[in-house]
């Protein structure tokens, strides 16, 4: 695991940059750009895994390190694509020139971002702690099986997260239009659709 993390950790920067740019497009009501970047990442990852884990096309067989490197390089590929889309969009908006960093706005960003980030971190960390401290004691096979099942299971609740993000976009736009009265309706709509989806997927898989 240490080997994997050592070879993968560097790609957290590109990953976060890709998320940030994806959210920028999402804020403008365009969630498809991030989707395309994610698809590029996924396809690149599969191809690079094949090359780097098993040593095809003249590359060395790197095993676990290859898997980590492949994921990192795939993330960079996705970032490159979305960065180009951002640059193109930025030019279309007539905003040529350097992208200067303003300290006051950066601090404002942190004021919003840090509590949100910590919220997500605490949610995920609690689960990660359970995996590392409890499940890992049950043996390597159990741990591997548990993680593989978690990856598959995550697909069942991804739509709910997608609905939450879409609801947030619509809510933000409603507030931006000055239609704050529409917020409870949109909130209820997103919650109801998520409820139906989770009910259907839960009854299907139970």
């Amino acid at each position: 695991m240490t080997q994997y993390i050592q070879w993968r950790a560097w790609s957290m920067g590109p990953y976060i940059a890709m998320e940030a740019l994806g959210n920028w497009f999402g804020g403008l009501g365009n969630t498809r750009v991030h989707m395309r970047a994610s698809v590029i990442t996924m396809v690149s990852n599969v191809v690079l895994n094949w090359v780097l884990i098993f040593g095809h096309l003249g590359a060395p067989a790197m095993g676990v390190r290859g898997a980590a490197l492949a994921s990192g390089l795939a993330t960079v590929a996705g970032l490159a694509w979305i960065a180009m889309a951002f640059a193109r969009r930025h030019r279309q908006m007539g905003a040529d020139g350097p992208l200067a960093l303003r300290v006051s706005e950066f601090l404002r960003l942190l004021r919003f971002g840090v509590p949100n980030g910590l919220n997500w971190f605490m949610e995920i960390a609690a689960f990660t702690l359970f995996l590392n401290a409890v499940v890992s004691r049950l043996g390597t096979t159990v741990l591997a099986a548990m993680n593989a099942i978690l990856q598959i299971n995550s697909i069942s609740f991804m739509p709910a997260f997608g609905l939450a993000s879409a609801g947030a976009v619509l809510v933000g736009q409603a507030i931006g239009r000055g239609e704050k009265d529409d917020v409870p309706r949109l909130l209820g709509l997103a919650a109801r659709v998520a409820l139906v989806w989770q009910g259907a997927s839960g009854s299907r898989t139970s």
Partner: protein
Amino acid sequence: MLQHLATGLLRASVSGAMIAGQVVMDNGVLVTDGRTRGRDARARVRGAALEAHRVSASAARPGLRELLTLAWPVVLSRSTQAVVGLADALMSARLGDTALAAVSTGAVNLFSVAVSADGHGVHRPELRRAASGPRRPARRAPLRLLRPGAGRDHHAHSPRPRRRSRARRSACSGSRPTCTAR
């Protein structure tokens, strides 16, 4: 069958509450816009409902279709992230249980770190401006990199685009970044 349905409904209630909570938190962030938080934020969210008299109901308000149009790319995007992890795990599985456990656990651990610096806090405060249009001069926009413009993306989901007077349109024609007659 009944047992399946009951389990599904139980899961649904938990997930629904989770998603509703997420959207409420997002609303809190959006409504506060960096000026208020905590109790004030909640009061503002409640106050939003009380402002119904101020804006008349519009047939063009976003509904289920708009929600799903925005949601499906996010769903696909998130799902591909799960597939990346799954592909790592499945392809490493041929190297043995130890490799599989290392890859899958390492990915989960890294994700917990990445998510804390994720972009969840990045775009939400900007949504108001994205929807409300270019009210501010371009040079004052946050980070400039995050500045939403008056482009296609904004108007695609803005059912009631703001109209400017002829004088203001002519004053702001072209791409003058410092035009303030908006």
